[in-house]
């Protein structure tokens, strides 16, 4: 049973086949967010703090931290934001940069066991990112593309994922610490994008036995009512074997659709998380019962 352990100084999150689906909050990312980018560049992190707290309150078990701002000192900002977010919340983080220097700066200040986001299957990238992952004993997201680009053939992407897992092993990194991103393409441009990912996820889980993640919202690029597509897509990928995703937990209905998928995939034992989250708070006890479970008692 594959389990990837990610942690902060005080909290551990397990991504695994027998675990609830892990939502990694995507909001702390200036790409496409002009205001956030401008503020982060000036060292104003109020919005970062608000986004971090709101995502955790909404149910994110982890947060992704990206500081990819044009013409800014990305490694320095990334490190500062990681330190800041770790001081206000205890969820583990994914350190997200396409710059190796950014990843290293983030890892150097991170407390706990981080998720490095990401390496691709490009040789040059692998040889720079994997030693860092090993050095800091982190886990790593492996994107299934290589020097030849993003293949539309899921079997090609499987082979790239396999190559990354092997290369990681060469660096002393266990397969359970490689989380493969099968690459979600926009369904509006490629009609088989959904089916390709479901198929690839099954292969990754059954043959390569790795955990998986993705930027889920890419599926709905260019379509109206993107939440409607995303909220259907997530339970479908969970059913096909995906164990985590980078999402916006503040989007309406998203957390409920993932929690429902946990119930249906049998990773919410006795449906207890679902019941806790959905019990009618206004239900009137008749007075004859005890008025609900108290919990907390342990058998001695």
């Amino acid at each position: 049973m594959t389990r990837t352990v990610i942690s902060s100084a005080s909290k551990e999150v397990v991504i695994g086949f027998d675990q609830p689906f892990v939502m990694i909050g995507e909001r702390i990312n200036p790409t496409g967010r002009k205001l956030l980018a401008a503020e982060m560049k000036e060292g104003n992190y109020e919005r970062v703090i608000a986004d971090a707290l709101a995502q955790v309150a909404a149910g994110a078990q982890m947060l992704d931290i990206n500081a990819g701002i044009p013409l800014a000192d990305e490694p320095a900002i990334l490190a500062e934001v990681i330190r800041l977010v770790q001081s206000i919340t205890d969820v583990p983080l994914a350190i997200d940069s396409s710059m190796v220097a950014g990843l290293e700066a983030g890892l150097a200040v991170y407390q706990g066991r981080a998720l490095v986001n990401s390496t691709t299957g490009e040789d040059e990238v692998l040889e720079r990112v994997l030693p860092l992952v090993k050095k800091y004993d982190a886990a790593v997201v492996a994107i299934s593309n290589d020097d030849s680009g993003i293949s539309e053939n899921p079997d090609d992407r499987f082979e790239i994922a396999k190559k990354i897992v092997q290369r990681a092993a060469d660096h002393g990194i266990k397969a359970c610490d490689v989380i493969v991103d099968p690459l979600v393409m926009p369904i509006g441009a490629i009609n088989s994008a959904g089916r390709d990912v479901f198929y690839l996820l099954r292969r990754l889980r059954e043959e390569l036995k790795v955990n998986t993640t993705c930027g889920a919202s890419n599926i709905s690029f260019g379509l109206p009512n993107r939440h409607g597509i995303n909220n259907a897509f997530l339970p479908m990928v969970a059913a096909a074997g995906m164990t985590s995703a980078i999402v916006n937990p503040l989007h309406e209905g998203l957390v409920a659709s993932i929690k429902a998928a946990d119930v249906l995939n049998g990773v919410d034992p006795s449906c207890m998380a679902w019941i806790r989250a959905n019990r009618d708070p206004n239900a009137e006890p008749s007075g004859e019962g005890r008025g609900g479970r108290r919990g907390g008692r342990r058998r001695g």
Partner: protein
Amino acid sequence: MSDENDVILDDLSDEDLVDQMKDDLYDGMAAEVREGTQILLRRGWEAGDILSQALVEGMRIVGIDFRDGTLFVPEVLQCAGAMKSGMELLRPILASTGSRASLGKFVIGTVKGDIHDIGKNLVGMMLEGAGFEVIDLGINNPVDNYLAAIDQHQPAVLGMSALLTTTMPYMGVVIEELDKRGILKSLPVMVGGAPLNQEFADAIGATKYGRDAAVSAELARALVGQNH
């Protein structure tokens, strides 16, 4: 498959036919757009006039509604397919008559180190719809690829795309090289990609920043003096 609403394209006047073709193009009806193109050619229309008045004009309307959120990516892809079906008939004629009906060539490519091309392809498609002949260099292009394409095709505009903060500075490298060779004076350069902004485009000396595919097509037309 005929009912009362069926339109017999050949029965329409030239003006009505062109309007119908624009509607059909908007609805992504490739066979109908192709048939309309054939009819106009048979009636003695110049290929360049069909291109500009029916196809490019039709795509211009598509671009506006795409920009405004009325049309969505899969629909625009169908519109582009419909335009292409007409264009296939016109291209050989345009080439053989040496008519400069196109707005010129637009060389486009994702920069070195970057393999993302969905956005770039969308831009290329809108540019084709806007009347450019698009030369697509694909992904992962070092500066030499751009230089060779500029040399070979003498484009009216060069476009570069990047999705990563690590690869977008390479656009600046290309622009610098163009400047050094004196090409930049006469060649407008457009840049785009998710992490970019106007400030970055200005900093590297790009002529225009294309926020999205529809805007890029409008800007490119403006660059070659085709302002609507």
